[in-house]
Structure formats: structure tokens, C-alpha cells
């Protein structure tokens, strides 16, 4: 059972090939810079350490440092070779061998080799502070200058994305000199990516194209500018046309951003995880499936999406599988399932429950104003079936701590998105993540414990066969529909606004080749590699 990447390789080369013909080095040097807003910031700190969680400046991963493979989250299962040409599992999923691309150079001219990859994973092994994906690395072996084997303590099929798709590879000859890679701020990053850092100041940093990038003729955008905008200032900047590419929540897209020019001021908000209404299953009333079903039937999700989310996203599929794109992960019997409001049926389901006990608090983080509105709408809907809800807006920190510890009745929370729906379902449902109430959990906040669910999750993780993985995910989708461990509401939108005045070739619903948000790594770099100067 070996999965090679030949087909996808051909696809990428085709994509890479089709745009390189049109441009010469000369025309791209005249091309204008692209102004990007990825994350809200008042000022930047000089940190380009790709292993840092938050202090690191955006673009470090993807544009400067690259991963071994690229996983398209909008087409679950689509994997594109990047620094690695292919991978091969052995030893029951405890060893992974990468064959690396040859001829890739670091921006200081040194060649990229298997030593760099081995060094990177050894670094994660040595410094757990940097190992944010919880990879259970046992060791690494350099088999040839272009072949490296990474060993794991346990079967790691399901971690392929974290290993190959989200671990930036750093240069051994630079990082081995660092005494403390944990606090290293890497002010002069040397990567393999399409861009190099060219300028840094507290309000603006810039990247120039890497002239020796391994994809010939790419990138065609010669310069990237990252100005610092706060959440408030970015709105004005979008309105005034100062930004070419942003990932911002805009309260009124038409008035603030589109301004009557839908062909020029475009946006694309694909799903990135699912926002659920989380019932605390340790609450004896919410533990009753009929109560959760009644809640689900009473909620008018269309109205929530239209009013609170301003129509920027879509109602979730009852299985939580992101659609479109996730078709092969849908259980066949629920392919066309959709949420419907049915107040009468909800009342019927609640007949056996003491009405006095149907009273819950709904905890929402105050800073998420759209969720505050969602909570308000849910309160109005549930009142119609006799469930009393008190919405309580609390500080982000308080919400994190209370939901983490299971100290709540109902709350709203989104699942993280992964390259396949399995990732979000595991976070939502795996019993191993459910801690006792009072102890902080890192997932499964509703504390769902179900042997069948765990079996399916384990089955996915024990296989590298796509069909088997899809089958397991379909089983999980079935559980979502039938047992309703959490109440799915809508897809969490990924924000992306882009202007076509300078460059074209952005991702779209018709061609979802990567996440379009500038704050998603390494997807943003993939988007940049697809851009071509707009015709004058």
C-alpha cells in the first residue's frame, strides 16, 4: 500500500508551466508591489523564527521557509509535492521517507539537502517548545543527499499533514550555530521560498522575489509589502484601496470594500472548519439526545447566517464535512441532508423533559461580535420551544478557560480546519481529548465519549489508504447526524479580499487551488505563485 504523488506532480507542473511562458524577467521587474494585510498589528517585532507561534511575522512560513508538501484544504486529499517529490511510509506508519527535490538552493547560495530536513525534525525533537504539532519524533536518518527518513514513536499516518504540510524546513548551516533556537528571532532569515526579507521596520516590512527560486519564472510579483494595520485601520485602508490583498472581517462588504466594482474588488470566503453550538454533555439535561435534537431543530440557521454572519458563509452540512470539496467524505445516505427548522417536532421531543430544567446559559466570547449576535438569535429561537437561554458575553480569556474546563452549559466554538474533515472531527469528538470537568481540555470541549466514534478515529489514524480514511470519516459524519454530539451551525469563513487591479489569478470557487486568505500558511505563498500581472 504505497501512495505516490505522480498524478498530482503532473498537475502542479502544468500549473507552474502555464504561466511562466507569458512573462520575462524584465516585465516582472516593472510589475508593481503587492500590498498585503494578513494579521492585525499596530507594530511588528523583528521575529522571523518560523517555529514561533504568534510573535512571528506573517510570511515567514510559506514565502521564506517552505514545507515538504502542500495540502489543499479546499480539495481534501489533494497533495502537491513541494520541497519533497514523494513520500513513502514503512514500519506500520512509524517511518516516513521523503525523496527531496534536487537543485533547490537556500537564498545564501548553499544547496538544500536531506541534512537540512533531518536537522529540522531533530530540532523539534530536541526543543519541545518548538514542536507545536505534537509530532512524536523518535529520530532521523539521512539515507542519501536527497533521501531522508523520519522515525516516529507511534503510528503517524494521520499526522502526515503536520509533518509534511506544516513544518517549515530550516537551513542546518545557519540554525546549528544558534545556542537557543527557542528565543532566536532570526532577523535575517535564509529560506528556500519564493521571497526574501528585504526591509524591516516597525510599521512595514517588505519581501523581494528570490531570483533563484526553484520554480522557473516564478514568482511574478516582484515585491511584497506588509504594512501594519490594526483591526480598525484595515477597514479604512480597504475602503481607500490601499490594500491589494487582505484577510479581514469587514462588517459591510459592499459599502466598505466592493463599492460597486465586483469585478475589481473581489472576495472569496471558503469554509475553514465549522462553528458549533457546544452542549456540555456532563449536564444531565443536555446529555439527553432528544434535547440536543430539539435544540438543533429549533435553530434557524439561515437567519443566523444572513443576519449575524451577514451572508458571508453557509449553513454547515449536518455531517460538518466542508462543502463543496468534501463530497468523497460524505456518508452516502446523508449526501443530501440539510438542516430544517421544525418547531413542532422540537416541542414534541421535549415533552418528556421537565420544562423547569430547560434553562441554560450560553457563554460567548465578547470580542467575537458576530458570535454575540448568533447567541442572541439562538436565544430567540430556543425561546419558541420553551428553552430559556441567558446569553453571557465574557472576556476571551475567561471563555477559553471556562469552555476548556467544561464549566459551562452551552457555548459557541469553531473547530480547527485540517486538510481533510477528519482533523476537525477528531478535535471535536475524540474521547482521549475529553478531560474531567475542571481540567483544561485541548479539544472535545463538550466531552463526548463514545466507543464507536473512537474506533472510527483510530481506524483513520491506522491507515494510509485514502479509501479507508474516507470510510472512517463517513462513519464519523453519520454519528454527527444521528447522535448529534455537538450542534453544527455554519462554516467558519476564511476571510480573503483581493483586488484584480494589479494581479490576477486568485483562487475562486471554480478554481480553489489554495486557501485564499493571506493569513493561511503556506497557502498564501501558493497563491502568490499563481498570480500574474493584470493586463493593462
Amino acid at each position, binding site marked *: 500500500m504505497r501512495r505516490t504523488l505522480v498524478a498530482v506532480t503532473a498537475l502542479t507542473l502544468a500549473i507552474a508551466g502555464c504561466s511562466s511562458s507569458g512573462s520575462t524577467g524584465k516585465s516582472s521587474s516593472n510589475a508593481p508591489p503587492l500590498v498585503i494585510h494578513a494579521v492585525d498589528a499596530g507594530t511588528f517585532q523583528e521575529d522571523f523564527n518560523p517555529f514561533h507561534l504568534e510573535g512571528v511575522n506573517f510570511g515567514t512560513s510559506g514565502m521564506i521557509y517552505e514545507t515538504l508538501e502542500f495540502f489543499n484544504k479546499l480539495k481534501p486529499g489533494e497533495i502537491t509535492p513541494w520541497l519533497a517529490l514523494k513520500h513513502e511510509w514503512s514500519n506500520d506508519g512509524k517511518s516516513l521517507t521523503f525523496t527531496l527535490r534536487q537543485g533547490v538552493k537556500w537564498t545564501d547560495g548553499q544547496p538544500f539537502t536531506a541534512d537540512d530536513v533531518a536537522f529540522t525534525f531533530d530540532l523539534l525533537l530536541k526543543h519541545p517548545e518548538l514542536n507545536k504539532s505534537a509530532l512524536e519524533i523518535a529520530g532521523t536518518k539521512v539515507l542519501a543527499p536527497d533521501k531522508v527518513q523520519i522515525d516516529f514513536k507511534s503510528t503517524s499516518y494521520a499526522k502526515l499533514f503536520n509533518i509534511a504540510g506544516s513544518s517549515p524546513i530550516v537551513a542546518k548551516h545557519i540554525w546549528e550555530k544558534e545556542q537557543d533556537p527557542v528565543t532566536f528571532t532570526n532577523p535575517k532569515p535564509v529560506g528556500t521560498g519564493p521571497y526574501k526579507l528585504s526591509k524591516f521596520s*516597525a510599521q512595514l516590512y517588505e519581501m523581494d522575489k528570490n531570483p533563484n527560486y526553484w520554480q522557473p519564472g516564478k514568482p511574478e510579483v516582484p515585491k511584497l509589502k506588509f504594512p501594519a494595520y490594526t483591526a*480598525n485601520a484595515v477597514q479604512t485602508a480597504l475602503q481607500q484601496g490601499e490594500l491589494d490583498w487582505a484577510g479581514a472581517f469587514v462588517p459591510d462588504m459592499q459599502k466598505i470594500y466592493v463599492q460597486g466594482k465586483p469585478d475589481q474588488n473581489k472576495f472569496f470566503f471558503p469554509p475553514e472548519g465549522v462553528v458549533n453550538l457546544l452542549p456540555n454533555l456532563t449536564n444531565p439535561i443536555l446529555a439527553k439526545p432528544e434535547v440536543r435534537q430539539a435544540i438543533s431543530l429549533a435553530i434557524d440557521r439561515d437567519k443566523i447566517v444572513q443576519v449575524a454572519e451577514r451572508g458571508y458563509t453557509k449553513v454547515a452540512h449536518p455531517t460538518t464535512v466542508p462543502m463543496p470539496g468534501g463530497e468523497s467524505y460524505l456518508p452516502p445516505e446523508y449526501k443530501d441532508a440539510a438542516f430544517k427548522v421544525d418547531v413542532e417536532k422540537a416541542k414534541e421531543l421535549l415533552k418528556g423533559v421537565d420544562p423547569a430544567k430547560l434553562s441554560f446559559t450560553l457563554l460567548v466570547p465578547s470580542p467575537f461580535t458576530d458570535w454575540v449576535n448568533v447567541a442572541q438569535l439562538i436565544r430567540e429561537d430556543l425561546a419558541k420551544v420553551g428553552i430559556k437561554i441567558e446569553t453571557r458575553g465574557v472576556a476571551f480569556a475567561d471563555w477559553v478557560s471556562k469552555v476548556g474546563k467544561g464549566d459551562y452549559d452551552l457555548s459557541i466554538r469553531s473547530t480547527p480546519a485540517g486538510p481533510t474533515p477528519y482533523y476537525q472531527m477528531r478535535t471535536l469528538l475524540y474521547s482521549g481529548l475529553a478531560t474531567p470537568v475542571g481540567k483544561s481540555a485541548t479539544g472535545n470541549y463538550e466531552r463526548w465519549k463514545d466507543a464507536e466514534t473512537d474506533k472510527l478515529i483510530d481506524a483513520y489514524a491506522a491507515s494510509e489508504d485514502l479509501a479507508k480514511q474516507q470510510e472512517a470519516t463517513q462513519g464519523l459524519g453519520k454519528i454527527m447526524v444521528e447522535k448529534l454530539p455537538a450542534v453544527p451551525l455554519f462554516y467558519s469563513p476564511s476571510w480573503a479580499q483581493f483586488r484584480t487591479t494589479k494581479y490576477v489569478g486568485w483562487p475562486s470557487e471554480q478554481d480553489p487551488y489554495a486557501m485564499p486568505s493571506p493569513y493561511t500558511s503556506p497557502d498564501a505563498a501558493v497563491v502568490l505563485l499563481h498570480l500574474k500581472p493584470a493586463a493593462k
Partner: protein
Amino acid sequence: MRFLARRLGFYILTAWAAVTLNFLIPRLMPGDPVDLLVARMKGNVDPAAIDAMKRAFGISDANLWQQYLGYLSNLAHGELGRSITFFPTEVSTVIADSLPWTIGLVGVATLISYLVGTSLGVLMAWKRGTWLDGVLPAATFLHAVPYFWVALALAFVFGVTLGWFPASRAYGLEVEPGLTGEFAGSVVYHAVLPAVTIVLASMADRILGMRNVMVTTLGEDYVVMAEAKGLTSRRVMWAYAARNAILPNITSFALSLGFVVGGSVLTEIVFSYPGIGSMLLKGVENEDFPLMQGIFLVISLAVLVANFLADLAYVVLDPRTRQEGQ
């Protein structure tokens, strides 16, 4: 001199209290920055990494007294720890980068507001019954308007709608920071709206305060005497009445600095100004204890220093304090 020594003693005591409060508040309150970080990273962080991160962030379980001593000794070495939001940047670096902007903006704006406000107050007291009386209700109103509301209104009208002044950041994107005229010009241009906000919102207190003290002073015998002697009214106003009336004004001004700094926090946030206020909010949002403590300490110390300077000014302007104490 005894007066100054006494005041200095008081300031040292207050500084110690500020430091200690700073130390205690985070430790008395619930919450864990690492949990937050994990939440923002949407889970999937190695438990081993969580422990390691806690150690890196300097979150320890030592007893309170030991932590306190450690904190004081770190402070004595000028070490404020590492920011969690901007990990691994040192808090002192974050502050050093943002403080000059705040001092520049708030300092200049406050000075303007003080000079203009005080002068207006003197004039209003002197020329009661003229059109200047109209300033009074306006000042009363401005005194009660939220800073950020003024800031937003100015940003909207002059920044967005008219486009006369930039409504965010501290200098233009195209300008290279450095000792050039272009950079200086850009900084001044960008500072106009936030500075006007602070001037408008803080001037009212100076006007009202100065006017009230002046009115009282104008009834004093020495002013009546000076007038009776036939001195020009300008001389009476500035050299006799205002010089005396300004003394309490200076103290209240120094004390109000804390309020001005507070208001400018909101102003900075509205205008995306890269000062210490924006940083403080970031620290609060991320439960970044070291950053919050550091910034709070710096603001407290700045107000203390301003008060001490006001005391010095008092000594220079009012010979009586040199003997009497307070």
C-alpha cells in the same frame, strides 16, 4: 529643600507601591496565558510543549515571597521579562519601541493643551461678560465627551471623508524612518489628528480649572491693589493674578497626567498609533502579564516623574514652599 526631600520620599514610597501592586494583581487573578495561546492556536499543541512554554514564559510555582524577591531583583537589573504576545521579544524592547511615540504624541499634545487651555482660562476670567463666556459651555461639554468618540469623529471627518489628514499609523508607508526632513514631516502630519483629539479632550479641564482659580485670585487684595495703583490691565492679569493662580493649576495638571495618558490609550487605539496604549491593550487581550506589568510600571513612573517636576516648578515659582513644606 526639606519640602523636596519629603516629596521625594513620598514618590519613592508610591513607586514601591506601584511595583508591588504590579506584582500582586496578576498573581491574585485567575487565568493562564498559555491556555490562551493554545486556544488561539486551536489546540493541537504538545502537552510537553505547554510545560516548556510555561517555563520559557517565566510562569513559576514558587511561593509568592520568593517570586516577589525575584521580581524585585529582576526589576533592579532592568529586566521586565519576555512578552508572551511577542514572544520571544523582551518586554523592555517592546516598551522601548513604543514609548517614544507616546511621549512624543502625548507630551506635545498635552503641552499645547496646557498652554492654550491655561491662557484661555486666564482670558475668560479676565474678560467675563464678553463673547469668551461662550467657551464655557463648550468646555463643559468637551470635558464630558469620551476621548475615543472625539477621536473617531475626527478620523471620520478629516481622515476618511475629507482626506485632509491620515487617520492611522505614525508615519507614511513610503517613508524610511530616519533623521530626515521627510520622515519628520510625515510624523508630524500623521500626528495631527491624534494630537488634536488629546488637545480638545484635555483642554477643557485646563480652561475650567484656570478660570476658576483666576476668578478667586482676582478678588484678592493684592490684585485689587495693583489695579488701584493704575498698572495696565495686561500687567495685572499676567504678572499678578495669573502668576499666583497658576500654582494650584500646575499641581492639578501633573495629577491629571495619569488621566491624559489613560485617554491617550484610547486615542492611540483609534488611530493605530504604535504607542504604549496600543501595546497595553494587546497585553490585556492576550493576558500577557509581563507586558501589562511593564507598561503599567512605565506609565506610573512617568506620572510620578511628572509630579516631581511639578513640585520642582512649584518651588521655583512659590518661594513660600521652600520653608513651609506642603
